[in-house]
């Protein structure tokens, strides 16, 4: 799928959105040595009343080659058709931020997406620090339905496959002495 990528300046209201299952996989069109990032897409902040419109989930992988970030993945389970997607910049994982790129997604409750972006120096640094996230909007969650932070590629511990330590855990606090 060929996606149009453009800068977006609107303020993202990161609060209400619908849920869906997304599975983005990043187009790994660069050498394996390029650094990879992964995102689990899940419903944006919501309460019981908002819950019916915030369904879905997905996954995505991004590959950084030089100044180009390529991503691909898929989503599924939205309560209403997707309308658009954004790459957003935040202070840290879990903190709503603002959009820096906007791109198209299939207008369905599930779909696959690919996109690539030229990152500037600050955006590259932000990616490496886990400050970029993907956000997918839908008709019933126009301010954002799914989101997921792009974090360095890591193993996921499951319930039947305990993971030996140390395991992946993004660190936010600066430890001072």
């Amino acid at each position: 799928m060929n996606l149009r990528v453009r800068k977006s300046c609107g303020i993202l209201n990161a609060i209400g959105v619908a849920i869906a299952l997304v599975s983005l996989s990043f187009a790994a069109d660069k050498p394996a040595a390029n650094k990879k990032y992964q995102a689990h897409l899940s419903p944006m902040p919501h309460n019981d009343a908002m819950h019916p419109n915030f369904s879905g989930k997905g996954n995505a992988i991004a590959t950084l080659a030089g100044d180009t970030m390529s991503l691909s993945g898929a989503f599924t389970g939205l309560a209403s058709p997707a309308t658009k997607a954004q790459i957003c910049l935040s202070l840290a994982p879990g903190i709503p931020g603002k959009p820096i790129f906007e791109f198209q997604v299939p207008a369905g409750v599930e779909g696959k997406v690919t996109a690539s972006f030229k990152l500037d120096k600050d955006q590259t640094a932000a990616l490496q620090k886990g400050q970029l996230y993907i956000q997918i909007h839908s008709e019933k969650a126009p301010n954002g339905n799914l989101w997921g932070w792009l974090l360095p590629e890591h193993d996921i511990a499951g319930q039947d496959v305990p993971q030996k330590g140390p395991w992946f855990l993004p660190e936010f606090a600066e430890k001072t002495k």
Partner: protein
Amino acid sequence: MRWQKTSGRSRASLAAGLVTAAIVFWMAAAQAQQAPAAGPFSDAQAGAGQTAYAQNCASCHGNSLAGSGEAPALTGSGFIGSWGRRTTDELYNQIRASMPPDNPNSLGADTYAAITAFLLKANGSQPGTSPLTTATAVTIGSVANGQMPAGLITPGRGGRGGRGGGRRGVNAPARRTGLIVAGTAKNYTPITDDTMLHPPDGDWLMHYANYAGWSNSPLKQITPKNVGTLQLRWAWPLEDGARQQITPLVHDGVMFLSTNITNTVQALDARTGDLIWENRLGPVGALGQNATRTMALYGNLLFYPATDAKLYALDARTGKIVWQTILSENPDDKLGGLMIAHGKLLVGLTRCDERSGHDYCFIAGLDPNTGKQLWKFVTIALKGTPGGDTWGDLPDEKRSGADAWISGTYDPEMNLTFWGTGQAKPSRRDERGTNADALYSNTTLALDPDTGKLKWYFQNAPGESLDLDEVFERVLIDHGPQKTVMTVGKSGLLWKLDRTTGKFLDVRETVFQNVWASIDMKTGRTTYRSDILEQKPGDQLASCPSPEGGHNWPATSYYPADDLLLVPLSQTCALFGGGGQLFYEMPGTDGNLGRVSAYEARTMRPVWTFQQRSPFLTGVMSTAGGVGFIGDFNRVFRAFDVKTGKRLWQTRLPTTAQGYPVTYSVGGEQFVAVPTGYNGGSPEQKPTVMLGGEINRPTLGHGVFVFALPKTGE
């Protein structure tokens, strides 16, 4: 000067106009402040809503709508800060979709509309002529100012919505109270100080099995090799409703259980499940929705903290009441932690959230034989007392919180008891009115159990602002000469302190957190993100973990053979404030809301972890046999290898496995018991928002389920 160019008449006219405008403006402002525009509801509707509120809501949100625990205040600046910019239909829909917590959307549209109308009135909105409808969409801030009309609420013990007014109380069938099943536990031996110091291997004498808070048993009949053959030996139903998060206590082959919906205490034969005696103490009803997590045993007495803040001492052999005492006259106060230390009965007060005429939370020492109060340590530092200057200029009457809702632990050599406290109230700094540290909230306290004297303290989360308690179990672990106390709070930080001095030793993040921007590794001092420090009313503050807590009341277990702390963890985030709480998955968890992680206590080194979609709703219990046990939201109770985390066995229960699993032995046979329950408070309610329609649990099914290995020949 421009004035000099103006004629006297014009000046007078202009001045008069300005004065008139100022008066009109002042009157309008005063009217807006003191008497908001008529609300979109009728007085009769609000009256019906007040009745419905008393029956369905007051048990959590309080008689005065002041909120309590995770139930937010429904009046005042906090409410207006959260809801002022939103509309009445949003409030209606939020209440309908989420309340009551254990059965949302169950009251009918008219009742929800009436409750919404009552909340508007309770926030200063004037009744109009037409009732509120589900379609009414008026901006709340345009009709309400957060000021409750005088006389709207009748305060006091037993008042509307107070004791006796709970939802369950109204709907629950009237039942006989008293000792309705009489019997005697045979061969029951008195529990002495020595028994408490060296619990028999086959007993589970106290909340965490031993004074050090290990939730670990020396029993080793059940092993990783044979645990897969565990069978249900017996089960005992408990009445459904309220917050059932109990610890079965076992001594001399007798199991003691409680049911807090009816405040019933029972003794059963721990081998067969036969009932020995039953005392229905009452009152019947949810009554504040405070969980009963543990009772306590000492001598021939069994101590039960009833939901009306009344503490009972029963004869453990017969169930007869020996003494009873009321710890607080405040209708919203509840009893929290409960334990025996050095021959004293220690009890913590919680839900002390009322802003006027309230008791402050405290930890008290009582004579276990009489119930006489010997001392009281108030967990709020008041003006003129040590730490009293840590609340800024906030007057004493506005200092609140620091609930002692979790039992402490005890070091007999030091003769010190270690307790945690909850956050200051209201939870957010902007609502609390001070950015100061607010001692002794979210603090580790080391107290002399004989006098209540404070030996030292360490404030784990100064000036906490996101409903992230640091109140949970204090686990006492020695490594050679180093004596430590370790604990995990809601923000997920695993703390290690020197328990002789309270000196900070180490800290580690157990789940992802983004609220603490820095941690001073020399002092342990935590500092919030700047937007949390600079919060304003109505701000939505991102919080990972959410108020569900990275860790909550499900307790950690310590497995001494391998020096492992086995920590149950939760992984959700929330936008906190500005209209309630909005929940989302924690980044980096792949949608797994529950996690169990093992850490080597000496080094804090992570050893293993497993996680799953369903949150865990029991503490971890470990045994010398090398088996750990934990239960979850999705009704699964599992055994795992404590050395690796590998799942060894599991079974499915009627509803959520909730409370504290225990193990004991009778007649040479090891048993494992796990309670079930439905309303688990924050760690159960918060993730329910995200699991709606995905994991469906029966609201019934409270009980205790007891497992053992097959008998020889089976």
